């Protein structure tokens, strides 16, 4: 039935080899055992034990269905497009393990219109603005002066600090905030009263890069492990 022209033999052979290689690679790289090779780079601190599926859940339908649905959407025969391969990772993925009632700066609060200008400088409505994944670190934000976007008018009554918060703000010493206060307020930590006793920036930087926790090990809330998270899903069924 198929007659390959002698002039196109090499082209045909190349096509067959390409197809076999492509299918084999697709099969091998989608195995659980090869997850480490597919990951674009090492996971952030605390996420080392997570499997890919914890964040990258399979998209609905099989690949052919997803192709068909997206083609239909492109031609206007379907209202919504569908995820291809895996579902998009959203804030909700993070919150399934990290959500807690005592978060000082929960992402949802920044959806209010009055934070419109603030989120132009730092989009606090989403976790990945400060915690970009696959960078083998804890905090990925480039500049730690982000408090200035909302707390310019801060005044602390009976200010316990030897150099008042008002003075620090006047000096635009915004890096000093993080030397006493962790952004999410998740540590039980005695805040110092002298600026000289605050956590040195080198320690903060090391913590951001995945090092030791300078605020202490007493945390108010511990994020769920993958096993605990899976149990919550199982229980909600």
């Amino acid at each position, binding site marked *: 039935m*198929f*007659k390959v022209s002698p002039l196109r033999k090499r082209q045909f052979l190349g096509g067959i080899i390409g197809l076999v290689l492509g299918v084999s690679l697709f099969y091998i790289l989608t195995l659980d055992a090869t997850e480490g090779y597919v990951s674009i780079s090492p996971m952030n601190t605390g996420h080392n034990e997570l499997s890919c599926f914890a964040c990258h859940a399979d*998209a*609905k*339908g*099989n690949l*052919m*269905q*997803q*192709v*068909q*649905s997206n*083609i*239909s959407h492109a031609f206007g025969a*379907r*209202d*919504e497009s*569908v995820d291809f391969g895996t579902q998009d990772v959203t804030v909700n993925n993070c*919150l399934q393990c990290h*959500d807690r*009632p*005592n978060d000082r700066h*929960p992402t*949802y*609060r920044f*959806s*209010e*219109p*009055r934070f*419109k*200008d603030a989120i132009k400088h730092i989009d606090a409505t989403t976790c990945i603005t400060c915690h970009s994944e696959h960078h083998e670190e804890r905090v990925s934000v480039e500049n730690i002066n982000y408090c200035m976007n*909302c*707390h310019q*008018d*801060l*005044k*602390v*009554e*009976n200010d316990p600090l030897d150099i008042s918060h008002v003075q620090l703000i006047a000096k635009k010493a915004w890096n000093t905030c993080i030397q006493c206060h962790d952004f999410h307020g998740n540590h*039980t930590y005695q805040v110092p009263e002298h600026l000289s006793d605050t956590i040195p920036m080198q320690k903060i930087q090391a913590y951001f890069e995945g090092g030791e926790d300078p605020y202490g090990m007493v945390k*108010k809330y511990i994020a769920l492990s993958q096993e605990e998270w899976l149990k919550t899903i199982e229980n909600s069924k």
Partner: protein
Amino acid sequence: MKTITKIIVPVLSICILYSCGGVPEEKTAAAGGKKVFAVEEVLEMVAKENDVTRTLYTKAIVGGGKKQGMKFDEDWRKDDVEAGPLPALFLRGVATSIRKSPVPLGLYLGSDFPVNAANKFEGKQADLFKKIKEDQKPQFFYDDDQKLHTAMFVDLASAGACVTCHNEHPQTSKSDWKLGDVMGATTWQYPKDSLTYKETVAVLNSYAKGTVDTYMAYLDEIEAFKESEKPEIGDKWPAEGKYLPTAEVFLDSVRKLSSYETMKHLVAAK
């Protein structure tokens, strides 16, 4: 060969692709129903529920509880603080619970003289709040940046506890509040311009669930008290002594106070 490559292969590919069928479209029963409420109506309904809940909590729980020696604090969730949530924190708890639900409803509280400077209105909200202070009427707008229908409703000093707490707070930016003053406004957001009956009920239910969740969190906090005397939790209120109602009793009272207005809307739509 030419016929195969030019006609049969493409036709066969399309047939195979089409025969797979697409990914089923997500059309919930609610989304498929008839839209019967404008978003403004629904937000007014849920804001009314919020008014009743907040007033009841502020007067009967915080006001009544303080008279019985119970404590309420903005840092009520801290490990070393044995207290209940102040009304503003109670509302924030409800808002947090709503955000965890599948209902895309946003709820926030702000003012022009907030205790916490970060809660001060800015931009469009500040402009509309000036109007609210003049006539106490709701303000509606479409937030183009977030593509959300937004409503603001007046938040009045409806109980003595609101006035005394705000006037006496160490970080207050205004200390001459009086009963009946416009202290702030609640801001509500929803993505659709109209809602089905089921979507409307889901909005109201998510608010009610938020109330129960937050009130339950307060009762859990009491359970963990180490030094303070624990009030008895049952069907009695602080007005009768060192008692607190259960979450069910509290919600029942909210429903009794607000159900007529809400039911009137819902029944009229049916």
